[in-house]
């Protein structure tokens, strides 16, 4: 099955080589970071987690969102998702791998990573996150390849895979919940210390993930003969927009509690994001862009007439994805650190080196998605 990834046309190979080149350049930047230390990033004493950890958080969401196709297909026997489910699972695999890579590039002593298993610490949410992500990766690789293999032979998937599929559903929820627990249990960071963080993470994940999947399906239809069909895309669109509504609702909950309550410790982080604090306004334009895009998304995709038009749907998915990416992939993590425990505002802007490494990780993700989707497409094409 894997060999199918080695046959492709010129476009396919040039895309792979392009990604390879990006990865190679990013690797050189990583070598620089490895040799000189994390000082080459914008991180520092006060903002000690930044772009890498934010991307990790965002991508855990994308990985978890595979459950939004797995659950209807396997649990509710929603046959329409037959073609799309494998794409969801094969999107989860590179997402988890990217999560792991983002953790890896953020570590000060990456070669000591096995210490997490040599000295397991059940008190630490990070330990459980490692277990959850590792398990989720294995589950998706197993389920994806077994079901695709059965499909190739025109048989039903073997019975023994069913328990794994059932387990993968709560497991998907758990990876993002545990990721939220990384943050929401810290007394030191009032911005994250909210019970609504895990639900918010899940809601944003279940809208951004399906939105990305819709975009990938539309892209596949354009560049190949593979078409998942109109209806599953429409169903996914409904899932994405409902989850987005829930996400916006939860953000408004958070804002009410914070500002009606009026505790300075909680408000200052929001102020830093939306109006700037002590003259530090780096995130202000970003956060307003995110908010406006969220509203635009709701306007575009809530009316059925809007999302039924696939052009508008595509646009709405793009605005949705960017809006959540800015919120989770930029603001969420850094704002937890600013102002710092001394109520002092520190400046954080990712450096070029940092962005280059992050781009490299995304390129690795894109490479794996390409290879996996190529396998799926080839297998499907060979089925009479």
């Amino acid at each position, binding site marked *: 099955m894997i060999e199918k990834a080695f046959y492709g046309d010129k476009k396919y190979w040039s895309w792979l080589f392009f990604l390879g080149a990006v990865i190679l350049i990013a690797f050189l930047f990583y070598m620089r970071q490895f040799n000189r230390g*994390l000082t080459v990033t914008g991180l520092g004493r006060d903002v000690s987690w930044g772009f890498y950890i934010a991307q990790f958080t965002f991508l855990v969401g994308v990985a978890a969102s595979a459950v939004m196709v797995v659950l209807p297909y396997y649990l509710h026997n929603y046959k329409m998702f037959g073609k799309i489910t494998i794409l969801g699972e094969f999107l989860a695999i590179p997402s988890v791998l990217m999560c792991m890579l983002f953790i890896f590039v953020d570590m000060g002593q990456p070669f000591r990573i096995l210490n997490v298993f040599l000295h397991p610490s059940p008190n630490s949410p990070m330990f459980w996150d490692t277990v959850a992500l590792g398990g989720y990766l294995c589950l998706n690789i197993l389920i994806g390849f077994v079901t695709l293999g059965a499909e190739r032979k025109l048989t039903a998937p073997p019975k023994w895979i069913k328990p794994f599929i059932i387990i993968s559903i709560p497991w998907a929820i758990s990876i993002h919940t545990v990721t939220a627990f990384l943050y929401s249990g810290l*007394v030191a960071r009032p911005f994250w210390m909210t019970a609504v963080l895990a639900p918010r993470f899940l809601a944003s994940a279940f809208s951004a993930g399906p939105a990305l999947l819709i975009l990938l399906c539309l892209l596949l239809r354009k560049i190949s003969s593979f078409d998942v069909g109109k209806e599953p895309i429409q169903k996914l669109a409904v899932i994405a927009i409902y989850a987005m509504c829930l996400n916006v609702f939860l953000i408004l909950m958070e804002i009410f509690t914070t500002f009606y309550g009026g505790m300075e410790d909680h408000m200052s982080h929001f102020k830093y994001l939306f109006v700037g604090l002590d003259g530090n306004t780096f995130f202000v334009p970003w956060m307003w862009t995110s908010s406006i895009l969220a509203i635009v998304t709701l306007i575009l995709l809530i009316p059925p007439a809007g999302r039924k038009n696939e052009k508008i749907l595509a646009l709405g998915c793009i605005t949705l994805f960017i809006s959540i990416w800015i919120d989770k992939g930029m603001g969420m993590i850094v704002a937890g650190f600013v102002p710092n425990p001394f109520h002092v505002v520190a400046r954080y802007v990712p450096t070029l080196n940092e962005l280059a490494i992050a781009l490299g990780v995304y390129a690795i993700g894109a490479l794996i998605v390409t290879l996996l989707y190529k396998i799926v497409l080839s297998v499907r094409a060979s089925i009479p």
Partner: protein
Amino acid sequence: MSIKRRDFIKITGLSTLGLVAIPASELLAEIAKTETSKSGKKLAMAIDLRKCSKEEGCTDCIDACHKVHNVPNFVLPDGKPNRKDEIKWIWKEHFGHAFNDNQHEFLSEKIQHIEAVVLCNHCENPPCVSVCPTKATWKRDEDGIVMMDWHRCIGCRYCIAACPYGSRSFNWRDPREVLEEQNTDFPTRMKGVVEKCTFCNERLSRGLQPACVEACKANAIVFGDIHDPKSDIRKLLSNNFTILRKPGLGTNPAIYYIV
């Protein structure tokens, strides 16, 4: 005998899963381990800010600590301190910053101008310890010191995110870039690990007081076992009004301040 490629991959995958079983069994042993009995000793520190603030600009405790522990001092090309890569174990903070929940507009001028000495609080319930994924930081049962193992730290910086007191520093770069004279009786750190005050446990084992305590000419820092009713620190605490940093968080710090 013929092994198909697919079978080979399956067997390899299953064997890898088998490897996971080893740490898993260790984990179970860890969970089964009950909490060891405590000897009842708890080291703590009382800092008399009245005495401390008498000599303005004094940095004796900071200099002594940073010298014995080979703490680097990074400066920017223009000579200003490098706040981004900064490493510090003990330092001075404005009263309003260190005690931001005691801060208000009409605080007496004298207090407003106090520069409070801050360091690791060696909390009773240290959030940094519970989050560490490798037990590279832990609380010593015998005396309550929150320790660091720089051999084991993976540099994930979760402890920095968890510390409500900003007491932890990360080695963003190699400290030896700027360390000129080194105390050969103590290691430096390498880039990529977190460090902080460890109550001079290496000096305590020799029967010495922490470096900052010894260095203070004003005798503003008193150190000892807070569970011993006859200790100097207990006497000081029973005769003076003391405050803690962020007591509401439930961390229960071991650094007491007399204002």
